[in-house]
C-alpha cells in the first residue's frame, strides 16, 4: 500500500513534449526525491499523478489506481502543489474546509494546526501569513485526511532553518511509519539529507532512478552527481 507507479507517462502541450515516456516506481516507507532542472517535467508528472492534467499517453497510478478512481482521494494522498488560499479566509477555516472535504472532524484540523505550529495564527486571515506559514498551512490541509502517501512540490520553499528542520523530521518520521513521500525540490542539500531514492528528469525524460547512495557513490554530494547526470543527458 502506498506505491506510486508511472508507466510510459507522456504529456505533450501542442509541439512541446513536457514528459516523455516516464516509467518509474516509488515505494512505500521511503522518501523519493524528484529532481531535474526547471522545465524538466517534474511538476507536469506530479499533476498527471494527481489527476490535474490528462496524460497524452501512459499512466500514473497510486495503489494501482488513477487518482480520480481513488475513493475519498485526500484520505489516501496528501498533496501540496502550488498551494492556494483565499486571502480573506483564516488558516483555521482553510484546514476545516479540507477536513470537510476529507470527511474527518474539525478536531483533526485544529490538532494539525497545532502540530504545524500555526495555532497562534490560525484565526488570522491568510493574507498576513509568510511564505513559510503558507507552506505549513498547505501541509496541515494535506495531512488532514491522514493519508499514507504524500506528494509535495518544493516543500522547503520559504521555510526558515527551524522550519526546514521541522519539515525534515516530519517527513522522515512519516516515511519510517510506512508512508510514501514523493517530493520535488531544488534544494539538493536538503534532499541529500532526507531522501532514500531519487528520480532525475532531464527535458521530460528519466535520466536516472535508484537509491540516493548509488547515485552519489555513497557521498552526500548530490549536487555533483545531479550535474553530471543532467549534463550527460544534454550531451546525448
Amino acid at each position, binding site marked *: 500500500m502506498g506505491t506510486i507507479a508511472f508507466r510510459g507517462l507522456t504529456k505533450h502541450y501542442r509541439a512541446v513534449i513536457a514528459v516523455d515516456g516516464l516509467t518509474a516506481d516509488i515505494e512505500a516507507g521511503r522518501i523519493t526525491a524528484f529532481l531535474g532542472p526547471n522545465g524538466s517535467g517534474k511538476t507536469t508528472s506530479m499533476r498527471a499523478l494527481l489527476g490535474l492534467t490528462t496524460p497524452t499517453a501512459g499512466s500514473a497510478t497510486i495503489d494501482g489506481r488513477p487518482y480520480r478512481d481513488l475513493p475519498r482521494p485526500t484520505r489516501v494522498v496528501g498533496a501540496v502543489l502550488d498551494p492556494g488560499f*483565499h486571502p480573506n479566509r483564516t488558516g483555521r477555516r482553510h484546514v476545516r*474546509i479540507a477536513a470537510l*472535504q476529507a470527511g474527518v472532524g474539525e478536531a483533526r484540523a485544529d490538532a494539525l494546526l497545532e502540530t504545524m505550529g500555526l495555532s497562534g495564527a490560525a484565526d488570522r486571515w491568510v493574507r498576513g501569513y509568510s511564505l513559510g506559514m503558507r507552506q505549513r498551512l498547505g501541509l496541515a490541509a494535506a495531512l488532514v485526511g491522514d493519508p499514507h502517501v504524500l506528494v509535495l512540490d518544493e516543500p522547503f520553499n520559504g521555510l526558515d532553518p527551524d522550519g526546514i528542520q521541522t519539515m525534515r523530521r516530519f517527513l522522515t518520521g512519516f516515511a519510517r511509519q510506512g508512508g510514501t513521500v514523493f517530493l520535488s525540490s531544488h534544494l539538493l542539500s536538503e534532499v541529500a539529507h532526507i531522501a532514500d531514492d531519487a528520480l532525475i528528469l532531464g527535458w521530460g525524460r528519466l535520466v536516472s532512478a535508484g537509491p540516493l547512495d548509488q547515485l552519489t557513490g555513497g557521498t552526500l554530494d548530490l549536487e555533483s552527481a545531479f550535474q553530471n547526470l543532467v549534463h550527460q543527458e544534454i550531451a546525448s
Partner: protein
Amino acid sequence: MNTLIRIEWRKLVTSPAVYVAAAITLALTTASVTVGVLLAGYSGTPPAGSPSNVEKTLSVAALSSMVMLVLGILAVAGEYRHRTIISTYLAEPHHGRVLAAKATLLAALGTAFGAVTFGFGLGLAVILYTARGVHHLDVDLARAWLGAALAGGCYALLGVALGALTRNTVGAVLGGLAWVQIVEVGILQGVWPSVAKWLPTGAGVAVTGPGSVPGLLAPGSAALVLVGWATALCLLATRVSLRRELR
C-alpha cells in the same frame, strides 16, 4: 452531492463576498425604494402609489440579480484567482460534480436572495407608502415576487457559467456587467428590440416587472427563456470545463 454542496456552502460563508453582496443589496434597495416613494409626484414624476411609480419602486430585482451574477462569478472564477481550485479538484477529481454542486448552491442562494431582497423592498415600500397615505398597491405583487426569486436564481447560474468559462474574475465581472448594461440595455433594446427580448436581460426584465411590459415577452414565456439561457450556459460551461486542463 450533498457533501459537495455543504463544502461549497462552507467556502462561501467563510469568505467576505457573500456578506459584502448582502450589504450592498440591502443598502441600494433601501436607497432605491426610499427615493422611489418619497420623491414620487415631484418634478413631474408619477404620483406615489400609481402603477408606474410602484413598478419602478419595486424594480429591486434588477439589483439583486446583478449582485447574484457577480457572486456566481466569484464562486467559480475566484477559485482560479486564488488557486484554491487545485485543492478543490484534489478533493473531488470529477470536475463536473464540483461545478454541479456550485450551480445547485448558487441557484438556491440566488432564488432566496432575490425573494428576500424583494420582500425587504416591499416591506419598506409599504411603510413609506403608508406614511404618504397610500394604502393599496395596484400591481401583481405575488408574480413580481416570484419573478424576483426566479431571476436571482437564474442570474446566479449565469454567473457560475461565466466564471467557469472565463476562469477570470475581473474579466467575467466586467464582461458580464458590460454585456447586460451596454450591449443589451444600451444598444440592442433600442436598436433591435425584437432580438433583445429573447436575451437574458430582456427576459429578466419581463419576468421581474409587476405587470406585462410592452415589447417584451409575456412573463411566463420570459421565465422559460431565462431558465433556458441559464441551463444552456451551465451545460456549455460544464462541457468546456471537462475538456479543459487546469492551468
